[in-house]
């Protein structure tokens, strides 16, 4: 077992002797979760396309926003601000603040991907969204190591889907019913909450999740949602470390978390044993 995430280069699972059953199982779960989240991407991608058209953006401008920014909240905000005649500098400032949360995703994934080539990491960063992070982190944790093809599978469910839905919404969005009528607007929060719940394995994660939600709501009410999400994501892990009195993790424990090899127990064994120490790594079907 390596003493740090980078002690051994992360093995590409598909480059060894074929896919292991646990890898196949983990990817099946990833695909199912990705399919669920793609519903949300389609629904809001359609609405974004329609909003861009009614906001006066050309098809090229609308797509440029999606391709270069790839962050729904900032894109929606930009449409409204442009239509309202707000100066570009203010729009850029707001975009910077709205998208600051991505630094937390990047930091959380960095130890898993430290051994990948710089160019690969640069490409990974480009498509790092709320959804790809939410899909990928539990996937890596289920496997106990990074799975780059898994990352691209998660991306495939979200990014091309978002682009395609944007175009369809732009060209024919007038006929699209309001997604909130069908409860589609809860897909995203349900997925984020569900994935957070699946990541909770002990007191520290529980404290991080609960205080993260509480801080985010409190700060959002005062300063806005973007500040709230960043504050929750930054402060809650600190509180969790302070509040929970478990000893600091040893290198061995962390090597298990970010390990490049398989976990000591096979995940399918855990599914049937019910209550293993690595239960949190599974989101069984």
């Amino acid at each position, binding site marked *: 077992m390596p003493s740090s995430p980078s002690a051994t280069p992360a093995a590409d699972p598909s480059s060894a002797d074929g896919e292991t059953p646990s890898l196949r199982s983990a990817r099946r779960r990833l695909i199912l979760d990705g399919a669920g989240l793609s519903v949300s991407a389609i629904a809001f991608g359609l609405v974004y396309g329609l909003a861009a058209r009614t906001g006066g953006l050309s098809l090229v401008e609308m797509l440029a926003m999606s391709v270069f920014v790839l962050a729904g909240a*900032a894109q929606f905000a930009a449409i409204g601000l442009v239509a309202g005649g707000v100066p570009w500098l203010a729009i850029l400032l707001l975009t910077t603040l709205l998208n600051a949360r991505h630094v937390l995703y990047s930091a959380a994934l960095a130890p898993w991907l430290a051994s990948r080539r*710089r160019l690969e990491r640069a490409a990974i960063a480009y498509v790092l969204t709320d959804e790809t992070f939410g899909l990928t*982190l539990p996937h890596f944790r289920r496997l106990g190591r990074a799975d780059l093809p898994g990352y691209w599978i998660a991306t495939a469910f979200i990014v091309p889907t978002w682009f395609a839905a944007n175009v369809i919404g732009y060209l024919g969005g007038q006929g699209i019913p309001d997604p909130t009528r069908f409860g589609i607007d809860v897909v995203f929060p349900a997925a984020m909450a569900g994935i957070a719940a699946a990541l909770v394995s002990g007191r520290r994660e529980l404290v991080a999740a609960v205080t993260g939600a509480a801080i985010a709501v409190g700060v959002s009410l005062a300063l806005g949602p973007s500040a709230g999400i960043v504050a929750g994501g930054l402060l809650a*892990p600190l509180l969790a470390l302070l509040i929970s009195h478990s000893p600091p993790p040893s290198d061995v424990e962390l090597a298990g978390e970010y390990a490049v090899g398989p976990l000591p127990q096979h995940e399918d064994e855990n599914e049937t044993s019910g209550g293993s120490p690595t239960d949190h790594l599974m989101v069984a079907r």
Partner: protein
Amino acid sequence: MTDDLVVLALLMGAVTYPWRAVPLLAPGFDRLPPLALEYLRLVGPAVLAALAAVAILVVTETSGAHRLQVGIELVAIVVAVAVVRWRRNVFLGILTAVLIVAIVRLATGG
């Protein structure tokens, strides 16, 4: 109709990408001390719970003010979390939440 906003989109991308890339590309993230790695491990549940909570509990008015909203969406998310913990199935949790909200909105005309 012009394509002037392509430049704005490029600039927006330019201020967004560093947030996504700097920790992944900065040297030294593979040599962090165990406590820092433990902190980063906790960022996942914290930020995902924060995203979910803000999405269902905080509403931004057209005036720009933010207010708390407690409705069927909160119930649906709580049930979804319970389903995920019980069945260990995120997709089933999402489906449950959507069904609850859709049925209640249909019944109440909301």
